[in-house]
């Protein structure tokens, strides 16, 4: 989650309590950054045949083979498509609901109930979507009872489908409540109601207030969260593992499958997928950082 509070400027001078913090940073470097750096270096070396059981010296052959096969591109294509659709639907739905239900979200029972979906892990969300929208799922039972379909074969495939509808539904179930709460929080902390009031006093119509004041403030303030959601969906594992097709697979599932295969010739390809994903994520974090700094006026 993205932080919403403004940070102070710092002088960078040493304080007596700094040694503990310095030790913490060293710990973080030793425990997280160095292993990650080493692992990515290992993955790069493995993917170019420099190390590993199949090592025959440096070669781009594995990269060329992955590029030729197309499995990698369809996997990235699917992941990017699912992440993009999820983000667009999540932000749109959450924005509409947060603005329309602002009052019930602030005071009523809904102000409590809306927090419950935050307790759902991806594992359970995937299980629920499978139970609800598979051929013999609950939605199918209801449609049969209503006489709208006669059997499982007439139920539209929403799980293991070509368009990843089940995967998108599961992600929406997890992300929409969070973004509703985030928009409501930003609306309150940024005093959007007061700004809207000022705009109306100056002669703006309700539509102008919505599209020129309210929505731009909300979207600008949560831009980093939107990028983080995109990255999270792009690399999600549990949901596409249960609800996705065998081919193409989302990047995390593909990486894990290629890594865990008995055929060790597939391992370099697992590392290639991991490296390409890492580069993509680092670029996205950089974009989020730069945009975030602009949004906060830093």
């Amino acid at each position: 989650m993205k932080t919403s509070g403004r940070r102070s400027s710092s002088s960078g001078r040493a304080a007596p309590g700094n040694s503990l913090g310095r030790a913490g940073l060293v710990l973080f470097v030793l425990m997280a950054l160095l292993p990650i750096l080493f692992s990515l270096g290992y993955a790069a070396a493995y993917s170019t045949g420099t190390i590993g059981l199949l090592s025959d010296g440096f070669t781009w052959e594995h990269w060329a083979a992955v590029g030729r096969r197309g499995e990698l591109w369809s996997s990235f294509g699917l992941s990017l498509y699912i992440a993009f659709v999820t983000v667009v639907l999540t932000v749109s739905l959450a924005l509409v609901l947060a603005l329309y239900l602002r009052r019930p979200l602030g005071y009523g029972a809904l102000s409590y109930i809306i927090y419950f979906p935050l307790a759902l892990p991806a594992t359970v969300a995937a299980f629920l979507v499978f139970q609800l929208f598979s051929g013999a799922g609950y939605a199918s039972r209801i449609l049969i009872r209503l006489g709208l379909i006669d059997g499982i074969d007439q139920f539209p495939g929403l799980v293991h489908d070509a368009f990843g509808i089940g995967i998108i539904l599961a992600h929406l179930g997890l992300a929409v409540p969070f973004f509703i709460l985030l928009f409501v929080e930003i609306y309150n902390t940024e005093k959007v109601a007061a700004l809207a009031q000022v705009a109306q006093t100056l002669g703006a119509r309700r539509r102008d207030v919505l599209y020129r004041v309210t929505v731009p403030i909300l979207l600008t303030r949560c831009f980093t969260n939107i990028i983080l959601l995109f990255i999270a969906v792009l690399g999600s594992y549990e949901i596409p593992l249960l609800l996705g097709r065998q081919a193409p697979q989302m990047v995390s599932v593909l990486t894990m499958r290629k890594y865990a295969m008995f055929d060790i010739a597939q391992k370099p390809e697992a590392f290639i997928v991991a490296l390409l994903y890492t580069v993509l994520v680092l670029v996205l974090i950089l974009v989020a950082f730069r945009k975030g700094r602009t949004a906060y006026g830093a």
Partner: protein
Amino acid sequence: MEPRTGTFTRRRLRPAVAALVAALCLFPFLYLLILSLVQEWSFPDVLPEVLSLDLWARVLGGPTALGGSFLLSLAISVGVATASTGAGYVTGKYIAYHPRRQVLLFLAYVPFIMSPVILGTCLMYLYIKADLTGSVLGVMLAQTMFAYGFSIVFFSAFWNTELRALEDLVYTLGGSPYQAYRRVLLPMSKGMLLICFFQTFLISWFQYGLTILIGAGKVQTLPVKVYEYIGEANIYYAALASCLLVLPPALLLWANKRFVFKQV
């Protein structure tokens, strides 16, 4: 101005939409609970034929694999949350006041935002060499790496000029770093420490991919159990395991809802 009829319709519709959203939020929990009580539910019946507390009684009545998984998950999550919150608290402070905090913060985001499975795949070589695969310690270390990144990002936004000024005041008045933490900083950070503990607890509590990868299937946490039951087509046990996975954080979230979005 909009037509009065439109406004009237919108106002009348609002409670219905609110009720629908509330129902959608509660439905998953209700459905899981019912599914965990089902003994028989033939297709295409909309309601189950037989409900029973047998599964729950079996799990709560004595030592079972599911009960063991619950306790193991709890122990791992508490350990990960304690370590990452404590370490993130001091590291976040150092980074927040550092002249190059943007670069350091960017680095803190890397483990926090990367796919645990993809990063875990690359990390496996190190874990195998360190003989940490298939062990609880290995799973905890791997999860802590991700939770620690989150904790740093979380706390780097917490430390600000006011806290810095208060800390400086303690030193000006002759206080030691220990006294500054003990008397000023820790009491002021109590709420944030709790939130961070809760969030990092959830990061660990919900983790499946990394656990199955580093734990090599031997560390049977609750999410691992859920997938195991789904794989066996044992949906009633999967629902029961899901209930155990979901109910504690749901109750905690509900109890602490006012904290969730404070500076997060």
